[in-house]
């Protein structure tokens, strides 16, 4: 489903972010990506939905060879990947409802279905009452939940979640984790970067630890592992 072969990444300013990364993530897996701040977790995930290109190495996602993909085809790869960005990336001029429905308009879904599904998803993240608010009128956690709603609205086959509970209280976080687990159970691959020890340790899944740009640990049903 997702495969990286000896991937290296250096940013244009020369910062080395990833080196020698090889990994295979199967359909329907749930993978936590952990590691210290600046280790390369976000970079690792940006490579998957092709926000960044690797400096070296091959990446395959859903059968597409990203390195050989024509520019025009990229949107179609992304449509099967729901991304929860670490910095949310909501469209500032659109309401919560519009931000979420936008992802469905992109795939030209029928209007009625858009409306039904969007409200359904907003209900799942408990934001129905904020449907008409603009991102600037939301609290940090509400913005994060909007980003979550947008990522799952299209039932993508892969969800990339970069620190999806960073701005949420433990109770809401638990709700979101239950939601992601259920989505995973229904067949979606989930790759989630997190700093939340409680979540990793209580919901045991595969754990990939990145440090200094390289994978230092990869265990099934692992734990967070960094002790204070």
């Amino acid at each position: 489903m997702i495969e990286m072969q000896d991937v290296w990444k250096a940013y244009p300013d020369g910062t080395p972010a990833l080196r020698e990364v090889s990994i295979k993530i199967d359909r329907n897996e749930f993978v936590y990506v952990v590691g210290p701040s600046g280790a390369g977790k976000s970079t690792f995930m940006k490579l998957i939905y092709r926000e960044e290109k690797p400096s070296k190495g091959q990446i395959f996602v859903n059968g597409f060879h990203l390195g050989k993909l024509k520019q025009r085809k990229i949107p179609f790869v992304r449509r099967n990947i729901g991304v929860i960005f670490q910095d949310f990336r909501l469209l500032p001029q659109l309401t919560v409802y519009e931000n979420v429905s936008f992802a469905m308009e992109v795939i030209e879904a029928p209007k009625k279905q858009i409306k039904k599904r969007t409200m359904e998803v907003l209900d799942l993240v408990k934001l129905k009452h904020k449907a008409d608010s603009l991102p600037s009128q939301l609290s940090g956690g509400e913005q994060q939940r909007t980003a979550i709603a947008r990522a799952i609205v299209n039932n993508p086959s892969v969800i990339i979640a970069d620190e999806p509970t960073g701005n949420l209280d433990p109770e809401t976080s638990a709700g979101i984790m239950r939601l992601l687990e259920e989505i995973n159970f229904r067949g979606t691959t989930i790759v989630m970067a997190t700093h939340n020890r409680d979540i990793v340790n209580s919901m045991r899944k595969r754990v990939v630890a990145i440090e200094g740009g390289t994978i230092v640990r990869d265990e099934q049903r692992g734990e967070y592992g960094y002790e204070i």
Partner: protein
Amino acid sequence: MKFRTLARHLREGCLNVIRNGWMSFASASAIAISLFVLGVFLLLVMNVNNLASELENTVEIRVHLDVVVPEEQIASIQNEIGKIPGVSKITFVSKEEGLDLLKERLGEENEDIIEGYEGDQNPLNDSFTVKVDEPRNVEAVAGQIEAINSGQSPPPIVKVQYGEGYVEKMFAVTNMIRYVGIGLVIGLAFTAMFLISNTIKLTIISRRREISIMKLVGATNPFIRWPFFVEGAMLGIIGAAIPVLVLYFGYGAIVEQSQVELGLMMLQLLSVDQIGWKVFGSLLGIGVLIGIWGSMISVRKFLKV
């Protein structure tokens, strides 16, 4: 593209005009004010060119006949001149009429000089006044008229005059006026285009992040471009409609108002009908095209995500 997607793009494009309130206002007013200036100069230059043409049309050829030429020959010469291509009008000016014209030219002050020249004492000759289609051909036509003399003796035509020297100078001036005018309008058109697209670029550059987010959510380039396309067209229409309306009614009012005043000076502005929808239509067209073009080139930059 599905119809509902097209409808969505139209809706979003119009909504964006509202959502970007301040920015839209800035773009539309840049379009409006640039096209207004362009329009004013277009009208000005058209009127000046029109005056220049009227000035050129005063050019005529005077053909002086010998006193001895009999009336039948006068008619045949008139006939021959009429056959020369480019001649548009021939008027016979008898020597009596010539004297009257001269009197007028001398003015009250000196008219006593030609006292006593009436009737048989008239020293002038009969003449033709010849107008040509195209003032620039006046020299050639004059040459052809002179050629009528050839082979006839005594030559019936004494002199062919068309204001040599003066005419060339006038053409130089009217040509300069035309070139300067056209140069100014073209220059202004490019300036307007630059300023408008500059403004639109600025409004879109501030939406660079938005565009990149759309792409990351899986939007194709056309999907992102379409609403901008509609938005650009809307801004163009709004921005161009204002100056077109102002110019249409404003110019109409000026023409009407100035009719009496300018009439005294034998001048006349082109009427709104003469200016016609060519001008107003093209202003509107330019506005819409620049609106679309400005949006498109600016958006394209940010689509490579």
